[in-house]
């Protein structure tokens, strides 16, 4: 390890390893000697890690790190609302994950890897720094796509619980294959029956699906319906976070939504547009036809 390239995660790992490997009566001296190998900007954290080690603190396996992944064209103002609503949950630490603004153009283009890689890097960092913590995630809109890509491409990343809302993950996503360790009822998909964005994402581009409008309809995921639009989940007046997400994060309890049985029948046009091989060609044909008329 080149010392000037050392990052926080490396410092944590180095302190941990040295402490573990040294004999108890030599531990303090061994870690203290490490200081010269640590870049000065990390000295303050290094000393604090040493304090914690002196007190024999062990990572708590019941502690939870909840990751919040936002959608496009937002800085994730809702993340603060979630953090506030869950602030009284014991041993829970909420982490806001973000990335540079994704434009609608980028959303429909195939170049989407930058935000996925950014979030992946953050998750890996957290896993290295807090290896014992239970990882959970709440993802909205494009954030749901990011989570699905990470699960799809990186089998070492697993979550204990997942909440999706305004999801644009393809409806045929193989949860059985990409989240094999997750128990039944550990993946929640909150659906807004007035949400058009997942449908738009499906027929407007490739790689997305209408799971945030029609559900996954698979035994692996609990689809739950609400009379909401794309972002109504974060509306403070609805108290959705406290009523529906808090019990799930705390204990895995899935509260029933009354809308599950009262929701109106989905129209045929939405069903057609949500179908990747019907909606997309249909919309393309309409666009070509309109262009032909105009030109």
């Amino acid at each position, binding site marked *: 390890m080149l010392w000037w390239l050392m990052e926080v995660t490396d410092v*944590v790992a180095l302190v*941990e390893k040295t402490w573990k490997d040294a004999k*108890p*009566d*030599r*531990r*303090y*001296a061994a870690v*203290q000697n490490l*200081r010269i190998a640590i870049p000065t900007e990390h000295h*303050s*954290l290094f*000393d*604090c*890690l*040493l*304090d*914690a*080690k*002196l*007190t*024999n*603190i*062990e*990572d*708590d396996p019941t*502690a*939870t*790190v909840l990751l919040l992944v936002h959608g496009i064209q937002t800085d994730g103002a809702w*993340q*603060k609302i979630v*953090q506030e609503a869950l*602030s009284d949950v*014991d*041993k*829970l*630490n*909420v*982490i*806001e994950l973000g990335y540079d603004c994704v434009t609608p153009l980028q959303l429909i283009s195939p170049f989407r890897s930058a935000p996925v890689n950014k979030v992946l890097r953050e998750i890996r960092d957290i896993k290295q*720094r*807090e290896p*014992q*913590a239970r990882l959970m995630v709440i993802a909205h809109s494009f954030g749901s796509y990011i989570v699905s890509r990470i699960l799809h491409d990186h089998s070492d990343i697993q979550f204990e619980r997942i909440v999706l809302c305004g999801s644009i993950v393809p409806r045929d996503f193989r949860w059985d294959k990409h989240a094999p360790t997750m128990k039944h009822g550990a993946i929640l998909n909150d659906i807004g029956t007035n949400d058009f964005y997942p449908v738009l994402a499906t027929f407007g581009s490739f790689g997305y699906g209408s799971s945030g409008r029609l559900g996954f309809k698979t035994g692996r995921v609990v689809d739950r319906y609400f009379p909401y639009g794309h972002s109504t989940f974060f509306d403070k007046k609805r108290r959705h976070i406290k009523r529906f997400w808090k019990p799930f994060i705390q204990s895995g309890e899935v509260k029933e939504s009354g809308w599950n049985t009262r929701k109106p029948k989905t129209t045929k046009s939405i069903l057609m547009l949500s179908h990747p091989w019907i909606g997309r060609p249909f919309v393309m044909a309409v666009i070509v036809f309109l262009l032909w008329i105009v030109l």
Partner: protein
Amino acid sequence: MFAERFLPLINSFPNDADALRRVANYFEDLENRQGERVFKVRLHANRLFDISQAGSTYRLARLIQILLDANLLERRLIVRSPLGGGVEYRSHEAIPSVVLDPLRDVEMDVTEENLEASYVVVANGSN
């Protein structure tokens, strides 16, 4: 109010906000019950771990780092003598590998067994 000094930190460090909020609540409660005596408080790292529900060594270290950098707490390291009392230092850097035990007038090695980390509350920016 000492606890109010946590507010800007909670806003500045969103990913540590939960732990900071819990520590702020602890001090607020203490201040409501005991007033100015809050400035006499000395906390050990394990107590801070419990109060903040940090969950991991790293998160606790981050929390301590934020509180020390913000000058809300100050570190106190004591090399304990087997006879009681000890020699106090303010940084790990300042601790030599061997310390003279004034009670026994003998030199003793500094080890994890006799070294204790604690934090005192900083009143009005100095202590």
